[in-house]
C-alpha cells in the first residue's frame, strides 16, 4: 500500500507538558564500557532528544523505525524463515493507534551519531561515518564550535519510541517500546519507559502493565516490572478455526493468527 503523500497529523486528545514535567529535553545516552561486543567505532556518549510531544512524530519515519527494529504491532506477526517481518506496519492504522494512545515518547539523535548499518554494529571494515562526515554543514560547525549538544526532532533521526494506552483513571498498558539496534545498551529504552511511568504516575495512574514476549522480559524487569502481585494469568484470545462448530464461521486476521469471531447467539 502506498504511504500518503501529504504528511499525516496525529490528533491527540491529551495535553502534554504540564505538572512540572518537561515535554521535551536533551539528555545524554552513555554506552556501558564493559560491553565487549561493542565496536570501538561506536561513540560512547551521544546527546539525544527525548520528547512526549506527539507533533514531533512523523508517521512515516515511525513506520520505518518499526521496520528497522523488526517490531510489529501484531503480537503474532507474519515472519519469514529468518524471523524478519514480512510486511511493514500499516501506516493508517498506526496513526489511529497513536491518536488513541495516552502518551507517546519519541527519542531523536543526530544522524552522524548513529552508525550507518542498522543490522551490523560490529563491522570493523566499514569506515565509521561518525568520524568524518562527508559534508560540513552548519550543524557540524556548531558541534565543533559550541560545546552544547544540538539535537532536535526536525534535524535529528527518530531512534527510539514508546507509547502507553490508558483509561485515564485506573490502568495503563505500555506498548511498542523500541530503540534502533545500533543504539541499544545505552539506556535509551530504559529512559523511554521511565518517562512513561513518571508521566502516568503524575496522572495518578499506578496500575501499569506491559505485555512482554520472552526476550523483552529482562528489559522490563530492569525497568522495575515484575509478575502480577495478585498472581493473575495473562491470557490472549487465540481461538481459531474449529471443526466442532457447525455452520458458518467468521474470521479475522491478526498478524499470522486467524481469529474466530464469536457468533451471534439467538436470544432465548
Amino acid at each position: 500500500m502506498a504511504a500518503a503523500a501529504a504528511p499525516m497529523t496525529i490528533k491527540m486528545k491529551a495535553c502534554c507538558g504540564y505538572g512540572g514535567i518537561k515535554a521535551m529535553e536533551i539528555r545524554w545516552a552513555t554506552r556501558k564500557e564493559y560491553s565487549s561486543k561493542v565496536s570501538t567505532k561506536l561513540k560512547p556518549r551521544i546527546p539525544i532528544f527525548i520528547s512526549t510531544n506527539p507533533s514531533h512524530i512523523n508517521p512515516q519515519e515511525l513506520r520505518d523505525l518499526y521496520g528497522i527494529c523488526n517490531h510489529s504491532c501484531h503480537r503474532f506477526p507474519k515472519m519469514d524463515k529468518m524471523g524478519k517481518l514480512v510486511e511493514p506496519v500499516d501506516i493508517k492504522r498506526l496513526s489511529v493507534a497513536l491518536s488513541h494512545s495516552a502518551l507517546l515518547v519519541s527519542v531523536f539523535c543526530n544522524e552522524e551519531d548513529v552508525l550507518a548499518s542498522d543490522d551490523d554494529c560490529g563491522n570493523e571494515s566499514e569506515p565509521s561515518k561518525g568520524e568524518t562526515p562527508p559534508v560540513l554543514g552548519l550543524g557540524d560547525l556548531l558541534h565543533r564550535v559550541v560545546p552544547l549538544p544540538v539535537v532536535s526532532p526536525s534535524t535529528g533521526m527518530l531512534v527510539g519510541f514508546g507509547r502507553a494506552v490508558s483509561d485515564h483513571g485506573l490502568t495503563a498498558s505500555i506498548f511498542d517500546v523500541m530503540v534502533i539496534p545500533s543504539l541499544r545498551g545505552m539506556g535509551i529504552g530504559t529512559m523511554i519507559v521511565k518517562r512513561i511511568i513518571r508521566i502516568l504516575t503524575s496522572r495518578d495512574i499506578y496500575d501499569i502493565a506491559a505485555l512482554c514476549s520472552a526476550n523483552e522480559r529482562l528489559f522490563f524487569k530492569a525497568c522495575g516490572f515484575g509478575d502480577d502481585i495478585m498472581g493473575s494469568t495473562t491470557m490472549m484470545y487465540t481461538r481459531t478455526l474449529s471443526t466442532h462448530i457447525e455452520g458458518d464461521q467468521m474470521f479475522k486476521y491478526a498478524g499470522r493468527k486467524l481469529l474466530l469471531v464469536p457468533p451471534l447467539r439467538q436470544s432465548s
Partner: protein
Amino acid sequence: MLTLNVVAPPSILPKFSAQPSKHQFNYINYRLANTGRRKLKVSRLRSNFWESIRSGFLKDNSTQVVESPSTLEEVEELQPEEFVLVEKTEEDGVVEQIIFSSGGDVDIYDLQTLCDKVGWPRRPLSKLDAALKNSYMVATLHSIRKSPGSEGNDQKKLIGMARATSDHAFNATIWDVLVDPSYQGQGLGKTLVEKIIRALLQRDIGNITLFADSQVVEFYRNLGFEPDPEGIKGMFWYPKY
C-alpha cells in the same frame, strides 16, 4: 460449577493517594469534555457496514473463511447496541428482562454496589468514572422487573458489566468483568465477553488480552483465551521506595 466471580481486579493500591489533586481533576474534566464517545453518532455508512458483515455468511452450511471488510475512518465511534437478552415470566406475573447494552451508561454508584457484591476492593469513584468514560467499550447487563399493573414502575438493577480499553487499532485489554452472584451460572458473563470480542475483532483489533484470577482461568479458556501464548506474559510496574 464455575464461579464467574472475579477477573483480576485492576488497581488495588490503597497505599497511594486516593484524593485526586485539584490539577489532576481538571485534567480529567478536559478529557471528558473532549471525548464525545457517549454521543451517539449515527454513521451514514451504518447499514452498509452491517450488510457487509452479514453478506459474509453463506446460505449453505459449509465452513467459510470470511474476512469481512472493516471500514476505518468513517465508523470512528463504536455503534452502541441495546437489546433484550433474556426474558422470563414468573408465576406471579412478574416479567424479568435482562437487557444487554454497549452504550456505556453506567451509574457509578450502582457499579460500586455490584463490585461490593462480588467482593472487590473499593476504588475511588472519580477514577472509576474516568476509566469508564475513557474505555473503548463498556458492556452492561441490567435486570428489569415489571410487575403486572405496576404502570411503569419497573425495577432496574445493574447485574453485570465488562469493559475494554484499546488503542482502536491493534491492542485491547478486557478489564472488570463481573456478574451479580445471584445471576451467575447462566452464561451472562460469557455473553458479555463474547460481545466485546466480537466488537473488537470487527474493527480488526486482534491483540485481545486480559489478566485472569486463578479461579477464572478456565472460564476464559472456554471462551477461547490462551494463557501465556508463545511465552507472552504481562508484567506490572512496582514502585521502589
